[in-house]
């Protein structure tokens, strides 16, 4: 029988090796798999490459993982924020490597990994610093830069509901990177607020089919008046 429901965050994260590339979902306050990031701090893997839209905020979550010295390199689109002091310090002192990627390239490179694409010509960033010394090509009169997929060893994502086959649905803008990261990693671990009985998720509305998901962990919900999630204090 297929049962992807993990008993705990620790169980789900067991076996992530040193040196792993970890795709971490989330954009702003939405879709951050906070419990899995905290669990990864506990779990102990080091020398990680982290792929996330940002580079940590405040002192918790991804920032705590960075602060613990466990991240060798971060691939992201928007590291600098008002409260990115942990990353800022590590970066300025040369203790972390940064690969800055336009956000659309980040999403598309992750999807490419999931879809088996070897590389793709993309218009974003042509003629800018961020194209670096990448190969460029004119196609039909337009300039493109060759971009390569970003594969993950593990993806940590946050969904709303999931079942034992690993099918997932998300909530509002918390969907963001979840579905593409799920496709791109050897092992995808998703937190959900509800475990659904198999067959109760509408097959028309499943956003991430179970084939892309390996472990599902239930976490507690912290609702606001609007039914959403409280901003981390």
């Amino acid at each position, binding site marked *: 029988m297929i049962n992807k429901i993990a008993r705990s965050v620790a169980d789900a994260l067991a076996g992530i090796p040193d040196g792993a590339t970890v795709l971490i979902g989330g*954009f*702003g*306050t*939405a*879709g951050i798999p906070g419990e899995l990031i905290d669990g990864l701090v506990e779990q102990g893997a080091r020398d990680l490459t982290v792929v996330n839209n940002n580079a940590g905020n405040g002192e918790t979550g991804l920032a705590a993982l960075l602060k613990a010295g466990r991240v060798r390199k971060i691939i992201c*689109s*928007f*590291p*600098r*924020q008002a409260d*990115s002091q942990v*990353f*800022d310090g590590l*970066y*300025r002192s040369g203790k972390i490597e940064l690969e*800055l*990627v*336009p*956000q*659309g*390239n*980040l*999403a*598309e490179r*992750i*999807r490419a990994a999931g879809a088996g694409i070897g590389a793709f010509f*993309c*218009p*974003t*960033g*042509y*003629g*800018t*610093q*961020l194209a670096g010394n990448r190969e460029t090509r004119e196609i039909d009169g337009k*300039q493109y830069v060759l971009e390569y997929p970003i594969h993950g060893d593990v993806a940590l994502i946050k969904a709303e509901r999931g079942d034992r086959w690993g099918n997932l649905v*998300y*909530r*509002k*803008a*918390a*969907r*963001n*990177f*979840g*579905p*593409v990261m799920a496709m791109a990693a050897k092992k995808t671990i998703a937190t959900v607020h509800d475990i659904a009985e198999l067959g109760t998720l509408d097959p028309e509305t499943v*956003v991430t089919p179970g084939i892309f998901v390996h472990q599902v962990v239930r976490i507690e919900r912290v609702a*606001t*008046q*609007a*039914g*959403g*999630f*409280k*901003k981390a204090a």
Partner: protein
Amino acid sequence: MTMTTYQRRTKDQLAARVAQDIFDGAVVNLGIGQPTLVANHLPKGREVILQSENGILGMGPAPEAGQEDYDLINAGKQPVTLLPGGSFFHHADSFAMMRGGHLDICVLGAFQVSATGDLANWHTGEKDAIPAVGGAMDLAIGAKQTWVMMDLLTKQGASKLVKECSYPLTGIACVKRVYSDLATLECTPEGLKLVDLVEGLSREELEKLVGLPIAA
């Protein structure tokens, strides 16, 4: 020597000026910061669909206090609402919209814009600055029309409309229009072209401020 008197557009006046050019039915992405203000000034009777890079189409205004839902935020990470007809989608689909030429208009802020429409808005290029690009490069080259909204001059009085950007580029020849506190201009392969001016300012005076020829 004659002194001319003219009034700069306030931030709200500038936002209203941009909003005036957004047509009924347009799908629009408003960049972080000043462009966000445009949403407050869309003329009544025009139905405009706002896209947010984080997977929202049909974004509505900020919620009432106490009704914030932190799963429903804009690209600037502020709580928003969803209009009837809105939808959610994942990041690759969202950027496919942006990069595939499906947005009618995007409105961005800028450090500098060149006369031919090069855009610099992501990085000051300072040695110790930590760079961050987000979706700026995708938006700049992806929308059917990229508009910039900015003050024409820096606080030091230098023109942000330049012959060539000295700051690191966001995109090449991608800006079609610049809406500023003093004038609205078009960037064309032949250089700047005037669209309108604030009252009391002449094209010749504007050319002096900018230091570049501006076609009438």
